[in-house]
């Protein structure tokens, strides 16, 4: 008997099954059940009775609600086209030209992800509003409404699109270009015939990411959208203006549409995307071409000027008494009213973001390891992978309201977590899960698959292999995940607006309150502080990366 138990335990699959089940169970609790609690409402009337698709019929019968849907598609498509094109060109400039200050351009374009989307809108108003700095130069645009939303979304999604293209273009296979060169293929033809096919899947992925982000964002339309209604504001109005949770749930399900579509299409493209990179790829040598370099330099400079202008727009508001009517310098806006949480909310944000980053990174890597590096339980792993991609499409507000409905129930065994900092951390971990999961999976895929076979043959338990080998080898990716979680948690609003606790207010919520209360200057000041801490974290990340690379080099020398 003892022997049998021992041999069973030694068969690591039992442990693996347990961990995998736990991971899936966690997702069921933190995502599936809250979503079910919310979406069940889409099929109920106010009395809680099941009414089938009546709410949907009512939705599609209501021209103004339907208009919000078309508006959303309109701004999301426009955003997608602009962001993807700009992101591609920008990444192309940095990876495939010899222009100057590439490193500077590469980091500066990330600015928008370091500040809350509400702050993008505040900055835009400083630039393009009636009293805007750029408007004063005679360049007038109709900022509030469709155009403002698109501008805001482009700012918000451009860094994401850029990062995706950057990764793809950076690891180009130089051999293809050398071959084309030797055949006398013209540069433009090379672009069409080699570069574009190389980034084809990135194009598709970037389009979905931009589209989904724009489709579900709430911060920009609420501030700068004016009366232009989109699904996210509609959801907000249904929930917080009309208290119609059932219709809100209907809108919530519609917000999931791009994700569902992305998933279907991803299944098609993914299978074709295998094995594009071989170990024998050679580094691309960039040819001399001054015209091209100057062109891209000008282009990248314009983009960066716009982004810096945005920060400038925030800065003038934060550092003047009452922009634009009293522009004398002051630091008074940094002494935040204690009642919006004061400076304490800033430190709370840091605390929450650190917790999110630490726990989130650990969770993501264990999760990705279970999904990627186990060769059994393929059905469960498929579920795990499916789960991992859903959060990307979940608007924060859907998560927030779902959490209230699910966790705030005395019969729920997890009820104790409600109203604690814990629920904010969990909501953040879930909200931002998809990107770190892809990072982690990518890093794990690069590790030799035979490590696992090796460890099985040596009876090294998987957890030991994970801690001793996988973790150290994935260190750069873990750092990246850590940073991503930290930065995202610092700027998020919508996921936690329904969940933050009275004793624990965070800076991004404070900004939305300051904005709502009209103290734009303090909102701008707080945004600058968030930008500052996020830039600091990014700097630390870059430094530790350099340090890590040096150590790797020493090992190779």
């Amino acid at each position, binding site marked *: 008997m003892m022997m049998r138990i021992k041999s069973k335990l030694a068969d690591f699959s039992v442990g693996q099954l347990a961990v995998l089940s736990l991971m899936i169970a966690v997702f069921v609790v933190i995502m599936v059940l809250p979503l079910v609690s919310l979406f069940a409402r889409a099929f109920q009337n106010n009395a809680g009775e099941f009414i089938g698709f009546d709410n949907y019929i009512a939705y599609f019968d209501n021209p103004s609600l339907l208009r919000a849907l078309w508006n959303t598609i309109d701004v999301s498509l426009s955003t997608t086209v602009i962001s993807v094109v700009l992101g591609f060109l920008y990444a192309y400039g940095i990876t495939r030209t010899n222009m100057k200050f590439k490193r500077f351009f590469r980091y500066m374009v990330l600015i928008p992800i370091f500040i809350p989307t509400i702050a993008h809108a505040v900055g835009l108003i400083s630039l393009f*509003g009636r009293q805007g700095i750029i408007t004063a130069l005679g360049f007038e645009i109709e900022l509030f409404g469709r155009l403002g939303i698109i501008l805001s979304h482009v700012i918000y999604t451009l860094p994401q699109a850029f990062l995706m293209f950057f990764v793809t273009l950076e690891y180009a296979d130089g051999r293809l270009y050398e071959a084309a060169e030797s055949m006398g293929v013209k540069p433009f033809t090379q672009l069409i015939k080699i570069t574009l096919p190389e980034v084809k899947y990135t194009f598709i992925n970037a389009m979905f990411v931009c589209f989904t982000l724009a489709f579900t964002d709430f911060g920009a339309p609420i501030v700068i959208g004016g009366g232009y209604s989109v699904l996210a504001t509609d959801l*907000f109005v249904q929930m*917080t203006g009309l208290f119609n949770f059932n219709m809100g749930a209907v809108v919530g399900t519609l917000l999931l549409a791009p994700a569902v579509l992305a998933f279907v299409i991803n299944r098609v493209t993914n299978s074709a995307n295998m094995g594009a990179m071989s170990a024998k790829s050679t580094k691309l040598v960039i040819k001399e071409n001054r015209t091209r370099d100057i062109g891209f330099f000008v282009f990248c400079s314009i983009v960066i000027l716009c982004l810096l202008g945005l920060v400038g727009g925030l800065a003038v508001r934060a550092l003047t008494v009452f922009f634009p009517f009293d522009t004398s310098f002051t630091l008074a806006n940094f002494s935040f009213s204690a009642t919006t949480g004061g400076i304490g909310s800033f430190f709370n944000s840091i605390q929450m973001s650190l917790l999110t980053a630490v726990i989130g990174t650990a969770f993501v890597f264990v999760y990705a390891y279970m999904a990627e590096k186990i060769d059994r339980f393929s059905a469960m792993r498929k579920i795990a992978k499916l789960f991992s991609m859903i959060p990307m499409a979940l608007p924060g507000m859907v998560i927030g309201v779902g959490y209230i409905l699910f966790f705030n129930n005395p019969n729920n065994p997890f009820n104790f977590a409600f109203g604690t900092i814990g629920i904010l951390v969990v909501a953040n971990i879930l909200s931002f899960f998809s990107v770190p999961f892809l990072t982690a999976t990518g890093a794990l895929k690069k590790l030799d698959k035979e490590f696992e076979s090796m460890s099985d043959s040596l009876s090294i338990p998987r957890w030991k292999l994970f801690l001793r080998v996988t973790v150290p080898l994935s260190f750069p990716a873990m750092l990246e995940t850590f940073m991503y979680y930290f930065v995202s948690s610092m700027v998020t609003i919508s996921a936690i607006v*329904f969940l933050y606790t009275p004793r624990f207010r965070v800076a991004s919520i404070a900004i939305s309150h300051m904005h709502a209360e009209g103290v*734009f200057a303090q909102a701008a000041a707080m945004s600058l502080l968030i930008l500052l801490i996020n830039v600091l974290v990014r700097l630390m990340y870059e430094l530790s990366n350099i340090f890590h690379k040096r150590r790797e080099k020493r090992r190779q020398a």
Partner: protein
Amino acid sequence: MCRKGSLKVRVVCLLVMATVIVGALVGCGGNGNSEASPTSGTITVYTAIENVLAGRLVETFNARYPDITVNLVRDSTGVITSRLIAEANNPQADLVWGTAASSLMVLEDMGMLEAHAPEGLDRILPMFRSDKNPPTWVGITAWETAFIINIPELEALGLTVDDIRCYEDLLRPELQGHIIMPNPASSGTGFLTVVGLMELYGRDGGGWDFMERLDVNIQDYIHSGAGPANMAAIGETVVGISFGFPGISRLQEGAPVAVVFPEAGSGWDMEANALIAKDNINPAAKTFLNWAISDEAMAIYNEAFPIISTGEGGSYYGFEGQNPVDQLIEQDFVWIATNREAILNEWERRFGS
């Protein structure tokens, strides 16, 4: 006209007729208060009162009741209300404080409010409390439609503040594309403005006709009640249809704005308090509710809100020589509550983007 600190000018109030009326009406309200209010505990309070004000109020409360810990959840009326509704199964809040009465009526319909007569109820004007006895909610302040006007921008259009006194003035052709108004579906202020216009110009058609004409001049309908005031303050619009408080706050902070209360009267709503119905009612919540209508609290509300529910408002910027309560038009809250959805649908049909 735009003196700083005008709010602080507290004039001894007019003799309040209300005291008499209320004394007669509310005699029965006081009998629920026999149990002593505890002076220690922890309470969770949901409120839509502006941060600055709410913070000061809680400080003052704690000076009197240092052993009661107040956990404050502050957000916009909409968010607070939907949070309460979402939490209906297991209310986290012990009480809701300073949140739109129109929202509290929604909660009342859902059976979420516990009838409770706080001490000192007899001082509250009848128009500012629920018609139940003991009342399900008790008002503390009212807020009312106001125009927040950016003076330099207005003058750039060739107008002066004196040109904008009443609703009709908003129809001036110079103002085309220069007025921002809140969306009534997402803003309580927007809703009370729409209701006010319907009461003033006619529920059946006159109100809508006026809004159609106003629509020509509207730059945008936005999702926040204070937003139009704030936009006017930074010059992003010329006239923001909003309510008094944010306008006066911006004025004090140095924004070049004037706050105008329309001559014909304002649509209004009140911020009210209520005890949340749940299995274990927190006794310290009642201490807070008692204090929340005390003179001490009212005095602080009054710094920001000309209209407090005792009617003892005093003299105010924008209400020179007038009792601010008189600014409020007559409104039938029952009619409003029953027609809320129809009004919003009609508005959405006409003006939704």
